């Protein structure tokens, strides 16, 4: 098992865990933070914290779930230190990496703006569920909320997103 080998000090085993889980860990961080550079930092910190805490990892757990919880906690810590960011700034940040003229700019712009108006947790829940495919209970575990709360947050977030984008309906 990779975790056991990493625990025994085999760096290559930990690198394999990084390869396996970094994309989802990034998505967890990005769902909470919205800013790419912050998400990258948090993923690196999350893996470093996990490496440090490998001794405390219980073999009956899923490594991915355990890691994602660590990453989410690190993301929330950073988010608390970044609360000064305004909605306008967030909206720009959400749109900025996607200035590809081949794709529909209006939809992207409106979607970026709509997402930036959602509360932090609602945004995280909708991204983790509808984009990443996590279940309600997995989201509950990652964000440290009951799965029923994840379910109702998701419902309200979708309703709000729909209301904000209703004039774009085809």
């Amino acid at each position, binding site marked *: 098992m990779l975790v056991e080998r990493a625990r025994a000090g085999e*760096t290559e085993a*930990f*690198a394999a865990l*990084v*390869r396996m889980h*970094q*994309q989802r860990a*990034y*998505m967890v961080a*990005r*769902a909470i933070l919205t800013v*790419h550079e912050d*998400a*990258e930092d948090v*993923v*690196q*910190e999350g*893996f*470093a*914290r996990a*490496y*440090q805490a490998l001794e405390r990892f219980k073999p009956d757990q899923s490594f991915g779930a355990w890691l994602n919880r660590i990453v989410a906690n690190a993301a929330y*810590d950073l988010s*608390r*230190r970044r609360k000064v960011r305004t909605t306008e700034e967030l909206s720009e940040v*959400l*749109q*900025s*990496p*996607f200035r590809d003229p081949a*794709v*529909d700019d*209006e*939809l*992207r712009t409106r*979607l*970026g703006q709509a*997402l930036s108006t959602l509360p932090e947790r609602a945004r995280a829940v*909708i*991204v983790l569920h*509808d*984009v990443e495919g996590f279940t309600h209970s997995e989201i509950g575990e990652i964000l440290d909320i009951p799965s029923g709360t994840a379910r109702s947050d998701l*419902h309200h977030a*979708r*309703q709000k*997103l*729909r209301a904000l*984008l209703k004039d*774009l*309906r*085809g």
Partner: protein
Amino acid sequence: MKKFFLTKTDGDALDATLASEVRRIYTPPAAARGDQGYWPSLEQRIMARVADPVFLASLESPRWWNVLEGWSRAGLLAAGVALAVSAALLQNQTPDDSGMEYEAVASMPALEALAPAVDQRDAVMTYVLAR
């Protein structure tokens, strides 16, 4: 403009077009541009951090301001409100109120005044026991 539908595929789930746009928004910019080296480079940076003893040590010792950040905001707010209320009460207390309180205390019977009553009771007890 491209049209899309917010169809209800999974209860009230977002439709595929919208979900894929959200995914695109949340993809790292380099990876979204098709840079195949993005994830291997992130892996290298992660492994460099894991191998950095200074960075690992910084994770071990929480800084005092981080500890303060963890304090409950509600607790601090409650303490602030309590302080404000006490200050307001003190400020609203007029000199007359203070005088009345002093008078009330000063007019209470002193312990010496109670002493005869105690002696009387002792005398009654002595009388009853003598019988």
